[in-house]
């Protein structure tokens, strides 16, 4: 179709001897013009394929695959260590319990000892105090009796005086 149009227009133009638009002689339009270009492009494509494979597909592909494998491995290893972590946690809890038991036992022991000592001291102190109290009481009694005795003698004298003074002679 394009050929027809161009051919007829060319014929009319040259027939009327108008100057043509292009300076070079237009060749017959060739849309299905197979020539050496075909194998040339085929060769170029194959070379491009090998070059691109060596530069891009293989290196980057390998890099991406390695990265994926590394990430997967890391994920798996994380899952494994969580079991270990649980074990360690249990051990730690057991140790803590044992330690706490020890501490409370020691504490109780210490408490017992100290209370015993304290009670001992208290008892001692009490005894001392009681002894001193008894002593003091005894002293007091003695003093009381002494004062009463002295008072008695004084009372007799006093009462004599009083009688003398009161009864008129």
């Amino acid at each position, binding site marked *: 179709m*394009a*050929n*027809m*149009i*161009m051919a*007829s*227009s060319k014929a*009319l*133009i040259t027939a*009327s001897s*108008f100057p043509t*638009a292009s300076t*070079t002689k*237009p*060749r017959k*339009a*060739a*849309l*299905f*013009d*197979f*020539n*050496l*270009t*075909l*194998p*040339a*492009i*085929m060769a*170029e*494509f*194959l070379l*491009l*394929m*090998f*070059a*691109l*494979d060596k*530069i*891009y*597909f*293989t*290196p*980057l*592909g390998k*890099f*991406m695959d390695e*990265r994926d494998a590394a990430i997967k491995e890391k994920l798996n290893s994380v899952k494994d260590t969580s079991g270990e972590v649980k074990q360690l946690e249990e051990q730690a809890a057991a140790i803590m319990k044992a330690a706490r038991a020890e501490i409370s036992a020691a504490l109780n022991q210490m408490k017992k000892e100290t209370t015993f000592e304290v009670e001992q001291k208290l008892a001692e102190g009490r005894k001392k105090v009681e002894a001193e109290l008894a002593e003091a009481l005894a002293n007091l009694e003695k003093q009381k009796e002494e004062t009463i005795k002295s008072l008695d003698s004084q009372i007799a004298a006093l009462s004599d005086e009083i009688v003398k003074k009161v009864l008129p002679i």
Partner: protein
Amino acid sequence: MNVLPCSINTLKGLYDISGVEVGQHFYWQIGGFQVHAQVLITSWVVIAILLGSATIAVRNPQTIPTAGQNFFEYVLEFIRDLSKTQIGEEYGPWVPFIGTMFLFIFVSNWSGALLPWKIIELPHGELAAPTNDINTTVALALPTSVAYFYAGLSKKGLGYFAKYIQPTPILLPINILEDFTKPLSLSFRLFGNILADELVVVVLVSLVPSVVPIPVMFLGLFTSGIQALIFATLAAAYIGESMEGHH
């Protein structure tokens, strides 16, 4: 469209302003053969872009990727996922093939749409996406055919040819025909899409003021990306189909 009743002036005017150089190629002579130099030049640029950006981004890979490395990792994962979906568990060796197919077509298509090729003026023809040439698309479709044959033969040996009479021997001619239509459809689908999109954009740009072609350009970006994906997916699907286990 009946052109003969149009006047000479209209036709010449259209020819002058259209500037659409369909089917005009820039020829180089190599030995006794010709090549479309514009296709070779643009394909070299595409290859340079691919190799350059890959080298720079993947240098010194970090465990926590930088932006460039992250993008290329995303692309690689996308390609691996595509291959795995289509081919199955043994997708590993095919990733470079499918990946290069996808990246080459994608960058070619987008380079044709995005890079300002018009700045460089060729004596004949113009620079555009390398995939707008039938040579390129066939050059990509033929290795795909070879690849799925190779996949089937290397996995099943000569038992691969049993698939031609499955599910029923009546379908033998159709199965044989498939071996021709597969590369044909791959190449023509890509060629047609890219060339047609370029033509639409160029014609719109030459006929209509500047803002109007922009939605068509976006559509072109989208469809050309999809075409790259389709080509790669179909290639992987054909390979997977050949390697499929026994029914």
